[in-house]
């Protein structure tokens, strides 16, 4: 379970009784209650679809289609406690379908890669030094913008996993089921996404001069590290 997923679990417990009740009432015919069921997750839908489709108009269209599809197939939701994961899986599927239709050359971008599982030792060549940013400064727009830009630059297959795990707090198992990947693949992609983010964030936050000089000389910054 990811760090975010652990926190989310306890928060979700208190709201699940109400959610189960909503689902039962919608299934019984009170269809307008679907708005209330969807509201807590509409942001998540946007984020997840955005990790696959860049165009805002496409994102909204796919979110609308996915939401309606979820309503139509609500009877197929096997576990009422997992509505969020089920809804986001529909959103991912709809976004992938749209991307395959519009950009067929990228058809395989999200597919699993067996070789990937054994290649987990990716190390950032350079990375941000944020020790001087105290925790209470993390709500600065400057930092949020840098993270947002870095996430946008991730390869799609890493970006989707990162968003599902670290933005939406889904578990490895839920993500694996959603993307038809093994749990090992999910962990590898998440690790790489996190490390690539560190690498990508470095230039935005001015490496210390010593790191900068070593990079200019073509040195690996790890070479001076204590082993």
């Amino acid at each position, binding site marked *: *379970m990811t760090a975010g997923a652990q926190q989310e679990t306890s928060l979700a417990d208190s709201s699940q009784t109400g959610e189960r009740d909503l689902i039962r009432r919608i299934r019984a015919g009170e269809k307008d209650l679907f708005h209330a069921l*969807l509201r807590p997750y509409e942001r998540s839908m946007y984020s997840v679809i955005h990790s696959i489709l860049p165009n805002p108009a496409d994102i909204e269209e796919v979110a609308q289609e996915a939401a309606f599809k979820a309503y139509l197939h609500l009877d197929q939701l096997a576990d009422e406690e997992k509505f969020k994961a089920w809804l986001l899986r529909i959103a991912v599927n709809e976004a992938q379908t749209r991307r395959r239709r519009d950009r067929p050359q990228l058809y395989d971008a999200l597919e699993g890669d067996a070789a990937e599982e054994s290649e*987990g030792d990716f190390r950032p060549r350079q990375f941000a030094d944020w020790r001087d940013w105290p925790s209470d400064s993390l*709500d600065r727009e400057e930092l949020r913008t840098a*993270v947002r830009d870095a996430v946008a630059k991730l390869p799609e297959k890493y970006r989707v996993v990162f968003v599902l795990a670290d933005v939406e707090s889904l578990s490895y198992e839920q993500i694996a089921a959603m993307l038809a990947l093994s749990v090992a693949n999910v962990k590898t992609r998440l690790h790489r996404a996190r490390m690539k983010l560190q690498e990508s964030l470095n230039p935005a936050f001015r490496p210390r001069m010593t790191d900068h000089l070593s990079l200019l000389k073509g040195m690996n910054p790890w070479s001076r590290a204590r082993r």
Partner: protein
Amino acid sequence: MVSCKAVVAELSNFLDRTVDAELRRKIERHLRRCVRCSTLLDSARKVLIISGDDRTFEVPIGYSDRLHEYLAAKLAEPDHR
């Protein structure tokens, strides 16, 4: 003592607290001595905090309204349930 390479390879698992107790102790010992690995961990942890902040990935103004208007129109169609 574990190497930097081993620590970085386990960094995600360390952040997610999915490493076993023995390995966790070894990594913590390494982090106390290695500035680079502890810097990377600190930065990675801060990025996760920012990523989980609702304000980082905002939705366009009016998105929610448009979504629910679409749904209301679809739900009002006679064929659906």
